[in-house]
């Protein structure tokens, strides 16, 4: 049995899904889009699968999330629908419910957050609401796990018996007449195409293009349809979309007047207003936001992250040490020894080194998201990102990009629209990540001792400037057309549940390990191989003779117009693909210095100050490391798209460094 879980954003859908399935979940993407698809088996019910569909407000055909949901319902035909509704915000939540009922699937309404309604002295007359809606209604509190088992038994029995909703009619007057006339007109088409008739008729009256196409109406029928809706519009005095929205909301108003007894705002809503008087305050909001993000960065990349990383490194080097001794004692050939220690262990080590950062960062991000603060960040910061065609919601992923592109790209998944997600993922790698700092430090120490800060700041600003220009270009090319409207709910602040946060962290860690392991691991082994063998596949003792150096030498003319044609520079850039810090260590090896500190004075051999700056700019902008690539591939859901992003980004890096070097040469 397959059940679909559907509801508005912020209705507690994820919490309910976690209660239903526990850690028994599988996360993937809907084919061809970056929309997340979660599936899980209901606890103690092996043969019942729940599919968690994206949080949506309507079955309109405009966003990828809505289209995916419609397609899933119409094509995969679940055995039943669990529609979760926020009882503290019942009017707007029922709007989706009325559209779902028209699909005529067995369906149960899960009336969530009933504890909050009761606590504030309100009540909802369940039998009356069932009567108005024609479907079973189960009051629950997903966060307290109340009513969930009752919900499961109701939906499984309804789905097993195939009980359809008792009521499909929510309209009156002229709209009613139009829907019935259209239903009559298309009933054979709907039958042939297996589209629920009532849903088809309502969508046709609404002017819904995908339904019009799916039903394959002939010219005659299209004209009749137009005639019916034109007449309806004339009599109602509203266009079709407004008329249907009005019809649904009018019905909901009547239903809630009959069944919902509210005593004003709930405690949570009153509290939210008080919190917002500070957090979205005219002058305080931005300093508070900076403080919060600063603290998160400090804790993630400084205190906690660094502590966990140290523990992890101790563990890794212990195991490496033990293996190293064992291999030496066993007299294994130096090549295999090097493969295990410098290839396998280094590869695994570099994958694992991301883990503490990801865990800690997603702990905080999950807190921000689930508490409702993220929506406020979007509200406060929206104006800044609007010019490049994004909304305030993209601000946090981009900010995290200054720490590490991997979690930044992964965090873009919470954005509500596919367009915003993709664009944010494309722009985030231009935010200079913290792994690039050692490179900046090395070069500035060698060439710009008097202007260290200036050079550093200019690099960060250059990254942002390039992202803005790239964003503007994307907006008028790849993402042309209307952006997804920024009409966003500000949910009441709620204390995030430990279970949701833990599951979220676990999911992100698992996701990263599973998807990134192969890519990072293979890449590390390949680079190891290139570093340790020459073109005749013989092991080398001097890294100058390695295949990597050969590739670097082969590529070096490409960088000549940027001012650094030395093969060591291009080889270092190549090795930077495993992790950006590797640029420094590779340069050190190739320049024959034992420690990076001794490197600075030698750099003047291969760089002039101008070409060093051009090298920095290229390093800042060129394709991210393989871990970030793996994350991008995962979130984009397509290898081709991920690879073309890398090519684009490296092209941009080349172009910018070229312009800077050539302009500099003329000026100096």
């Amino acid at each position, binding site marked *: 049995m397959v059940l679909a879980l559907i509801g508005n954003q912020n209705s507690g859908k994820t919490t309910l899904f976690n209660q239903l399935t526990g850690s028994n979940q599988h996360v993937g993407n809907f084919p061809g889009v970056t929309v997340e698809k979660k599936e899980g088996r209901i606890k103690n019910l092996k043969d019942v699968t729940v599919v968690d569909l994206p949080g949506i*407000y*309507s079955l*309109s055909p*405009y*966003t990828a999330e809505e289209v995916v949901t419609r397609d899933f319902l119409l094509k995969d035909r679940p055995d039943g629908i669990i529609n979760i509704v926020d009882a*503290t*915000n*019942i*009017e*707007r939540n029922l*709007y989706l419910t009325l559209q779902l009922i028209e699909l005529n699937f067995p369906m149960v309404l899960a009336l969530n957050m009933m504890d909050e309604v009761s606590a504030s002295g309100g009540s909802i007359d369940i039998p009356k609401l069932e009567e108005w809606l024609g479907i079973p209604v189960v009051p629950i509190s997903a966060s307290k796990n109340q009513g969930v088992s009752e919900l499961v038994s109701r939906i499984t029995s309804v789905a097993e018996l195939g009980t359809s909703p008792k009521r499909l009619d929510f309209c009156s007057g002229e709209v009613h007449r139009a829907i019935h006339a259209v239903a009559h007109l298309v009933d054979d088409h709907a039958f042939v195409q297996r589209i629920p008739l009532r849903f088809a008729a309502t969508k046709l009256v609404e002017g819904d293009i995908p339904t019009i196409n799916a039903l394959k109406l002939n010219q005659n029928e299209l004209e009749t349809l137009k005639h019916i809706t034109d007449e309806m519009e004339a009599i109602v005095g*509203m266009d079709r*979309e*407004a008329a249907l*929205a*009005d019809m649904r*909301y009018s019905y909901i108003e009547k239903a809630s007047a009959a069944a919902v007894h*509210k005593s004003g*705002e709930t405690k949570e809503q009153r509290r*939210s207003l008080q919190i*917002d008087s500070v957090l*979205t*305050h*005219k*002058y305080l*909001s*931005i300093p508070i936001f900076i403080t919060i993000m600063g603290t998160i960065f400090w804790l993630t990349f400084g205190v906690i992250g660094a502590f966990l990383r140290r523990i992890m490194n101790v563990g890794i080097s212990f195991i490496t040490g033990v293996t190293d001794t064992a291999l030496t004692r066993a007299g294994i050939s130096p090549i295999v020894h090097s493969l295990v220690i410098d290839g396998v262990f280094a590869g695994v080590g570099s994958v694992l080194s991301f883990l503490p950062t990801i865990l800690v960062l997603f702990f905080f991000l999950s807190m921000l998201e689930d508490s409702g603060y993220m*929506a406020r960040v*979007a*509200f*406060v910061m*929206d*104006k*800044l990102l*609007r010019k490049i065609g994004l909304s305030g919601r993209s601000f946090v992923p981009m900010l995290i990009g200054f720490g590490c592109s991997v979690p930044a790209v992964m965090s873009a998944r919470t954005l509500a629209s596919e367009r915003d997600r993709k664009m944010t993922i494309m722009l985030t790698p231009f935010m200079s990540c913290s792994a690039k700092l050692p490179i900046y430090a090395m070069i500035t120490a060698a060439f710009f001792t008097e202007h260290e800060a200036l050079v550093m700041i200019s690099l960060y600003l250059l990254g942002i400037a390039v992202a803005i220009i790239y964003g503007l270009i994307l907006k008028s090319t790849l993402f042309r057309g*209307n952006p*997804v*409207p*920024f*009409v*966003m*709910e*500000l*949910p009441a602040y709620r204390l995030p549940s430990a279970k949701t946060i833990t599951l979220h962290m676990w999911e992100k860690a698992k996701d990263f390990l599973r998807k990134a392991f192969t890519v990072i691991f293979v890449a590390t082994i390949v680079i190891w191989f290139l570093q340790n063998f020459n073109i005749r596949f013989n092991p080398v003792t001097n890294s100058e003779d390695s295949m990597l150096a050969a590739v670097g030498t082969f590529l070096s003319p490409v960088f000549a117009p940027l001012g650094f044609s030395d093969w060591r520079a291009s080889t270092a850039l190549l090795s930077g693909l495993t992790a950006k810090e590797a640029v420094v260590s590779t340069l050190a090896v190739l320049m024959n210095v034992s420690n990076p500190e001794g490197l600075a004075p030698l750099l003047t051999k291969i760089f002039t100050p101008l070409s060093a700056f051009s090298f920095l700019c290229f390093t800042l902008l060129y394709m991210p490391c393989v871990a970030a690539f793996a994350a991008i591939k995962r979130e984009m859901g397509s290898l081709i798209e991920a690879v073309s992003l890398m090519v684009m980004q490296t092209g941009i890096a080349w172009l910018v460094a070229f312009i800077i070097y050539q302009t500099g040469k003329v000026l100096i």
Partner: protein
Amino acid sequence: MTLNELKAGSRAVVTSVGGEGALRRRLLDMGITPKTLVLVRKVAPMGDPIELFLRGYELTVRSDDAAKIEIKPVE
């Protein structure tokens, strides 16, 4: 009068929803339909977007989009 012209703290009734395509549909879906009572809760720190209170919940819209919503102020 349009919704973006309404001062923070004042109420109005929606008379018609303009705009087109995805934006207009989203506004209607979120409950901004004719005859709905709307309160302008506040304006974002940078002067845009605005926060509305309607149908028992808080909603944010950009000023440019609010300009497409015709209203009649309520005392």
